[in-house]
């Protein structure tokens, strides 16, 4: 006998089902907890990736294709170093995008970054 699932069975959404019973929120601002929930899920998935990388290294080492010592002692040449540094810089900027944008908008000379839509609507209505 083979099992049949309902046609609307979506394992991804069902995995996230909420338990019956009101959720307690602990911080005065629930947004803090929302962000924390997302950050902890990313932390978990980051740990999964790191563990997978570690497994990969160990499998390659076991097969004699590389050694982790070699990996730990890895010294890039000048070109590779520059590429890696550029990547790191771009990565950090990407992660902290919102902070940069908020700070830029606060500069007096960049006031145009922070004009509200109603303000611009009003201006365009008269121009």
């Amino acid at each position: 006998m083979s099992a049949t699932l309902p046609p609307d069975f979506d394992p991804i959404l069902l995995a996230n089902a909420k338990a019956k019973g009101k959720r307690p929120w602990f911080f005065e601002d629930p947004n803090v907890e929302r962000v924390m929930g997302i950050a902890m899920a990313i932390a978990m998935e980051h740990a999964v990736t790191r563990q997978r990388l570690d497994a990969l290294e160990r499998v390659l080492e076991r097969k004699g294709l590389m050694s982790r010592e070699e990996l730990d002692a890895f010294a890039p040449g000048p070109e590779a170093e520059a590429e890696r540094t550029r990547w790191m810089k771009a990565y950090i900027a990407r992660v902290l995008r919102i902070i940069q944008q908020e700070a830029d908008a606060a500069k007096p000379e960049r006031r145009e970054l922070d004009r509200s839509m109603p303000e611009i609507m009003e201006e365009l209505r008269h121009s």
Partner: protein
Amino acid sequence: MSIRETPPSWSHVGRHAMFPQAAHDDVARFDFLANLNGYLSATVLPRVREAWESRVRPRFEREHGRPPADRHEVRKAMAGDPVYQTWSALRRNSMEMRQQVGRALVLGQLPALIEKAHAANDGAPTLKLDPTVTPPRYADAVDIHCMPGGYHGALCDDDVSNGANYDAGIFATTGGMLGRYNDGGGQALAQWLRETRPDFRPRRILDIGCTIGHNIVPVALAYPEAEVIAVDTAAPMLRYGHARARALGANNITFVQANGESLPWPDGYFDLITTAMFWHETSSRAMPAILAEIHRLLAPGGLTVHLEQPQYAGMDPYEQFIRDWDAYNNNEPFWSEMHDYDLKAKMIEAGFDPGSYFETKMRGVVDRAIFPEADGGSEDYGRAPIWTAFGASK
């Protein structure tokens, strides 16, 4: 770092034939969660107590001119403390993540799990489901310990997903302290029976509220001659539990869908009646009704014994408050009330002789395959390897 702070990897979980298949990333997710829980209990929780001692309690005492009278006053005073808020928010989140990870693991392979259950269950006289048994209110009002769908929920016909999810997650939530097969409670009970009653040979054993049967399997294996009956109201748990017991070689258990408040066996039918981590998931009406049923079903000379978390009596209000966290924040609505009960009085009300009542501590049997060194008695609130056991003989 001590052994206690590094839980064993989930890769050591006992994989019986009914257990869900898991790959590298599933293991890594459970390992993350076990270590997150370990961090929260070993590193953050002591700081919650420090916040209580150093600022919340002094403020309470200044304002009221007295120490807090009970755990409820501690809870209200602590609600605004940032360290408590952070610990709580992370802990709640960790419970929710644990459910998500277990469900994601299981739901992706649900047809295969259902087919495995069919292979073990179909036509077996040792699985007796009864669709007229409805979920009792205490098991239906909320999804207990935040398991979406609860014990009874079914996503499709013949669903076993929450049984598999429950089985897969316990190892991570308890940091492996219940052993590879999450059966530390049942192992402890079997060992205690062997040590304290070496000549006891129960003919018939009943386990009430068995869920996936993880705690009755070691008892059934310890008494292979006994006829063992495990009851629960939830069919998804029983389907999974029956197939699981078969996979572990416990062939003398019959899993029966029935409500413990009214069971279909004659007076004096059982020599041993057990529960494990059951009472705190019942209700103030169901508990005495089930205890009275146990008294009725027990044979003269029979024994009943129950594993539970410790009662609150004698604990300081802060400790009660921390132990009560699950009641409010992990969907355990009867936990708080139940842990205030005078259990001896409840047993006497149910008909047991006061002189036969006993209460003891039962230590979990340490699974040496995953814990080379015994744990030094640390209690992680709500999931400790040391239980209170109470019971009586008739």
